[in-house]
């Protein structure tokens, strides 16, 4: 047995070993690579029959739009959906993880419908464990045996339970609409229109949000995912004829290097030695 200690990889989670090196690099002027955030508007509200969730569809990398039509309303359970704002990878990963955990839990507990508070607890404990490094801000909504529920979850792991909620960079624009027009006992039509209006407010007034409106309506025993329910931003100008791209790539020099050696097989060669 060797005397040297065996290198054990850290037990999951984040490794902060490279932080000092990153610091040194940024002092030398080397910028950190940017990550994709969903500078976003996400909303949820409770209406008379259940919950309505809404989201815009723009994903940004700094000042550039990297996805004009992404999906921010994630499936958690047949009766529970979750909107995500913040770093796209974090929201995807955390919602998919809790989705799987909920499914396993349903198998373990006799196929009973998942409860929103279960998803809530799983999400908040995960986010708290990572002390805010997992940058996911979520709006969780669903209808279970105990009734309709709507919660907001912050990156550090705190939660709120609310009748209407907004998150993301466009949250103030959307909340302004909710605060003026929300009241208890909204009908389905009124609820969808209000959510649409709030998301549109985020789309037009916040630069981090844009493109289309996605809506998800959850009621007792039924859900409706309205992808691209409203598309208020068509492309404004189309060139009449197409463009020609004249310059062909010139071939200056050709060299072919075979990666595998071509081997010929001789029939009836010497027998292999024992």
């Amino acid at each position, binding site marked *: 047995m060797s005397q040297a200690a065996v290198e054990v990889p850290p037990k999951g989670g984040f490794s902060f070993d490279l932080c000092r090196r990153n610091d040194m690099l940024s002092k030398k002027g080397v910028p950190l690579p940017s990550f994709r955030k969903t500078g976003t508007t996400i909303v949820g509200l409770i209406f008379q029959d259940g919950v309505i969730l809404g989201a815009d569809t723009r994903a940004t990398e700094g*000042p550039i739009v990297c996805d004009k039509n992404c999906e921010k309303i994630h499936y958690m359970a047949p009766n529970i959906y979750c909107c995500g704002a913040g770093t796209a990878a974090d929201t995807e990963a955390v919602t998919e993880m809790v989705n799987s955990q909920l499914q396993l839990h349903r198998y373990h507990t006799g196929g009973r419908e998942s409860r929103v508070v279960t998803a809530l607890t799983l999400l908040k404990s995960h986010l708290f464990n990572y002390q805010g490094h997992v940058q996911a801000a979520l709006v969780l909504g669903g209808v279970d045996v105990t009734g309709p529920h709507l919660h907001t979850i912050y990156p550090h792991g705190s939660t709120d339970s609310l009748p209407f909620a907004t998150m993301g960079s466009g949250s103030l624009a959307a909340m302004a609409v909710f605060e003026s027009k929300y009241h208890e006992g909204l009908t389905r039509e009124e609820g969808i229109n209000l959510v649409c209006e709030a998301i549109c407010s985020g789309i037009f007034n*916040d*630069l*981090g949000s*844009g493109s289309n409106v996605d809506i998800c309506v959850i009621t007792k025993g039924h859900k409706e995912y309205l992808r691209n329910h409203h598309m208020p*931003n068509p*492309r404004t*100008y*189309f*060139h009449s004829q197409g463009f020609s791209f004249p310059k062909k790539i010139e071939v200056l020099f050709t060299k072919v290097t075979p990666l595998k050696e071509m081997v010929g097989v001789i029939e009836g060669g010497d027998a292999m030695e024992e």
Partner: protein
Amino acid sequence: MTKQQANWSPYDNNGGSCVAIAGADYCVVAADTRMSTGYSILTRDYSKICKLADKCVMASSGFQADVKALQKLLAARHLIYQQQHNKQMSCPAMGQLLSNTLYYKRFFPYYSFNVLGGLDSEGKGCVFTYDAVGSYERVGYSSQGSGSTLIMPFLDNQLKSPSPLLLPALDAVTPLSESEAVDLVKTVFASATERDIYTGDKLEIVVLNAEGIRREYIELRKD
């Protein structure tokens, strides 16, 4: 003891993009009309284009307060020139004046990224492109601002300007007709608006030719 960093900056970036294309007997200068700060929109209707002389128009993106101050200074200098020389400044002359004005503030620059467009003394289109401290060059086309990284490669592909290092010097103007150039500008801005969050709302197009100056507006995406 590490050097103390400032926690206040005198600059802000109000976003936006501008483009200018020079033709055989015309010049197209265009800019979007959105003024923003951070993730918010300040106004959807702000003109980044300024007429400096009869045959000379400047479009600037960057920090609009510095742009306004720069425009004011150039207008005043033009007035003095007119009084002293009894004629309007030509576009190349204004180009040099702008460069000198920018370099004058080399150590506290105007946060302004400019393109100057107009007609030279022979009536041919000319475009000058600048950096923030006054380095400039006469080119056939240019773009500046937040959408310039999206716009410039497409213009390079469609208009390919000859290198200024070639001898004999080739004409920098594009063979496209005026309407084709305006069409190209509209397409280019519609595309930049799709992918750049700071570009959008409305597009202002200014065309200079022998008949004078004409202005056109088209709608862009507002999200």
